[in-house]
């Protein structure tokens, strides 16, 4: 077997991947044409609240670079227990779309909100809450985008011809200690995604999401039999994995370390099924779906899609352990497996699946970050009378600028990209979920309560990650906190697991308690505002 670093796909693989990328770019152009009439911002950032069931289900931002790079890396490293790590996806379509869907959809229509800060500002009547929301969305999503850009580059890298990489490596701008293949792939990925997202806006992100989600399902379906055949079947692959990595590969809590003890198993049922409800990308889609029937069908489609993607991915990367037993970086397992197993043309198609997942995630998130900067900060506070043409160019420019800034940070990616995804998902959910739930279902919720909830949730998340990074001993907290248990994913971004639970549990709990407590001790909200959002809408009443 070639050493993994030397794997390069043949030219047809690159051509197939290029064809896929061109189709994505084409969809960006068509989307731009489709939204030329009407209000620019509502169409560019929200698709005119017209998303159908298929689009909502396949673009619920569930699939990402984490799905096709980070998650396979964990299965490959730690074995079957990673199936329990992701198992909450069995109920995630219900929780993510079903709990808040109707109320967020209704509140967004009543307030005319276009972005998440809009929604919170109007629901609670607090400009300060809007600013805080914008700042937190931008911070956490930009962090996550670094992982997505890095994942995109990792997938593209083995598809690049060796001659291209050698030519690029000879360029004086490429540093001696940098991986030229990774850098070139990062540059190509950045140029592609920034161009079509800047130009096409929300519709481009949605259309490419749908197209790419279908390609992902096809890719996984092709890869599954190839991996099972090459490994000699799941049972054989499990035994081989256990011989190579230890008995923990076939059982909990995981191969080589206490990857997933029972406290974390519970935590990750909170992580994916509950924190998924509070992601800005999810909440924005809940503001954009067409009607309640669309929501119901979205839940059904997403249930099928999750089962078709995640269960086969577990099987594929259990098999990968016996097919590629000694990868130096487990984050490279997906592209290397594809290049090794499939013929060059099919490899291009299958590589398009994870590449598509990353492209679609990045495009959606880039828009949320740029909408936060352009709509929620520039237009609202800096230049309220800006002409539409100015806003259009500011939106294009800001999307491009954010993409380029993230790419620069992604030049030095951390190990185990999935940990960035987990950190930012936790941060966003602990900031936005409690205010969203309280605002949707509780009349007594106040603006001060929502601000407290957001600040405490984000604060607890960042505090636990800081303590994990620097250890309680270094921070002089040894008398208060015991050493963090050596569990979960290793790496620099490992949090402090208080009582063996992931920070998402503590942050969500603290955020909810703060929201309720501060609401109760502050002045009740204006009855007229409560009636607006909790009473029967007079305009809609047939009487």
């Amino acid at each position, binding site marked *: 077997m070639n050493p993994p670093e030397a794997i390069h796909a043949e030219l047809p693989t690159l051509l197939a991947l290029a064809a896929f990328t061109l189709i994505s770019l084409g969809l960006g152009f068509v989307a731009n044409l489709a939204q030329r009439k009407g209000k620019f911002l509502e169409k560019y950032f929200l698709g005119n609240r017209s998303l159908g069931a298929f689009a909502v289900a396949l673009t619920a931002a569930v699939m990402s670079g984490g799905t096709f790079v980070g998650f396979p890396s964990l299965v490959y490293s730690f074995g079957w227990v990673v199936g329990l790590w992701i198992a909450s996806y069995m109920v995630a379509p219900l929780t993510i779309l*079903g709990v808040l869907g109707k109320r967020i959809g209704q509140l967004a*229509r009543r307030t005319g909100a276009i972005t998440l800060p809009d929604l919170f500002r109007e629901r609670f009547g607090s400009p300060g809450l809007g600013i805080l929301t914008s700042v937190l969305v931008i911070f956490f999503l930009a962090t996550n985008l670094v992982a997505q850009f890095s994942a995109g580059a990792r997938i593209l890298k083995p598809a690049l011809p060796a001659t291209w990489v050698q030519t690029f490596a000879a360029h004086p701008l490429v540093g001696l200690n940098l991986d030229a293949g990774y850098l070139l792939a990062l540059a190509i990925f950045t140029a592609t995604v920034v161009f079509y997202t800047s130009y096409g806006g929300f519709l481009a992100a949605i259309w490419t999401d749908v197209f790419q989600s279908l390609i992902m399902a096809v890719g996984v379906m092709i890869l599954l039999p190839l991996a099972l055949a090459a490994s000699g079947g799941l049972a054989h692959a499990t035994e081989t994995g256990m011989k190579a990595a230890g008995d923990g590969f*076939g059982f909990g809590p995981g191969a080589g370390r206490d990857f997933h003890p029972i406290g974390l198993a519970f935590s990750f049922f909170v992580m994916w099924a509950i924190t998924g409800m509070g992601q800005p990308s999810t909440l924005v889609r809940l503001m954009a779906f067409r009607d309640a029937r669309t929501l119901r069908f979205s839940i059904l489609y997403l249930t099928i899609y999750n089962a078709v993607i995640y269960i086969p991915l577990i099987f594929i990367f259990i098999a990968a352990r016996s097919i590629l037993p000694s990868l130096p970086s487990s984050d490279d397992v997906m592209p290397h497996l594809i290049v090794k197993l499939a013929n060059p043309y099919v490899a291009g198609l299958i590589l398009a699946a994870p590449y598509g997942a990353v492209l679609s995630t990045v495009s959606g998130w880039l828009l949320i970050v740029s909408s936060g900067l352009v709509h929620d900060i520039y237009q609202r506070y800096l230049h309220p009378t800006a002409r539409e043409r100015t806003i259009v160019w500011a939106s294009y420019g800001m999307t491009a600028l954010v993409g380029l800034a993230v790419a620069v940070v992604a030049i030095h990616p951390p190990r185990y990209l999935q940990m960035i995804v987990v950190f930012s998902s936790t941060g966003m959910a602990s900031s936005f979920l409690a205010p969203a739930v309280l605002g949707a279902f509780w009349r007594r919720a106040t603006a001060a309560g929502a601000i407290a909830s957001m600040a405490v949730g984000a604060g607890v998340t960042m505090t636990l990650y800081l303590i994990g990074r620097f250890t309680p001993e270094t921070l002089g907290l040894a008398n208060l906190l015991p050493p963090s248990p050596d569990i979960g994913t290793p790496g620099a971004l490992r949090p402090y697991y208080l009582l063996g639970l992931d920070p998402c549990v503590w942050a969500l709990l603290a955020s909810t308690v703060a929201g309720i407590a501060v609401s109760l001790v502050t002045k009740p909200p204006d009855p007229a505002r409560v009636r607006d959002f909790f009473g029967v809408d007079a305009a809609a009443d047939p009487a």
Partner: protein
Amino acid sequence: MQRTARLKRKNDVDPVLVHARREAIIIAAAWLTATVYSCAYCYLLGYIRRDRPLGPDDLHPILGMPSWFFWGVIAPWGACALFTFWFAGFYMTDDDLEAADEPAAGAGDAS
């Protein structure tokens, strides 16, 4: 739609709120059931513990999967899928979410 109109007249409470709250409570119960079952089953039968060492002879593969994984993850995944089909297919109501208002102040084009 009749049920929606009746609720509006009776309580002057938004029926979307009533339905959404009831559906959210059922979903929360489903999440809790899935969490408790999967975590407990996998921990009791699929985790290596100090008092319970496990090895290749304890895998008892079902369709190539370790039996603890099949019954602790795959089987409840199937059960949840069936529940979801019933819930979203037949139980959830098609409430009227109303037409969109004009974008919030400061939103939309300024022309």
